[in-house]
């Protein structure tokens, strides 16, 4: 139902999310972000190309880290969202609080510009 893995590339950790992030699976996303932050990642990208669905449980996980990312100077960006997934972020205005790029390159340059 959900598959999450982290691909390290240089100083960037890319968390790839495949499948549905809902009330039953959001804990896995939470655990993965926690794991990556514990490894002291400073740049995290979220590959959402194969993210099929996200509910409030998944949005809640992202939201719960927004402040942590800011306080710990961790640069983040999401990319590859389908229209229906992006729409869920937009309904709550989270697209204003989290960077959402079209491609991985775009999200990478966003992170680099912030440094």
């Amino acid at each position, binding site marked *: 139902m959900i598959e999450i893995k982290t691909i390290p590339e240089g100083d960037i950790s890319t968390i790839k999310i495949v499948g*549905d992030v*809902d009330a039953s699976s*959001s804990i896995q996303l939470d655990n993965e972000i926690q794991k990556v932050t514990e490894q002291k990642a400073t740049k995290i990208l979220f590959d959402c190309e194969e993210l099929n669905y996200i*509910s409030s*449980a998944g949005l*809640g996980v992202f939201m719960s880290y927004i402040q942590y990312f800011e306080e710990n100077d961790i640069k983040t960006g999401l990319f590859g969202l389908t*229209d229906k997934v992006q729409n869920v972020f937009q309904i709550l205005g989270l697209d204003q609080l989290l960077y959402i790029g079209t491609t991985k390159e775009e999200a990478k340059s966003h992170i680099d510009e912030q440094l």
Partner: protein
Amino acid sequence: MNNYNYKVPCSKDKLKEIRVFVSKTLSKYGLDEVEVSTLVLAIDEVCANLIIHSHNCNPQEFIEVNVLVERGKGVTFQITDTGKGFDINDYQEPTIDELIKKQRKGGIGLILVKKIMDRIEFKTSSKKNTCRLFKKINVI
């Protein structure tokens, strides 16, 4: 007027089945992918809330989802259960800022439902709770 029904045990694993049921039902009526997925999201949120908070994920208990499609009017979802009643309209949702500051993960599902649906009604009788959600949308 067309009526569709789906009954599932109160287990979080069943949320995907509910989404597939609502999605398949609505995609017969000429709605685009984003419209369908937005309505699926609202129903998923209400069902997740009931399964987790009213039924403590007890698979011996059930919720029932009913979809009523009326051409020229819109879609009415009716979610029925026998748990402790919970009226979404009484829920004072937190703001997004508050949630971020408190680093809370929950609490936004019902904000989404209220933003997506046009009308939400809640009725409770001695044993049955009914949450009815209406969306005016062009079904063909």
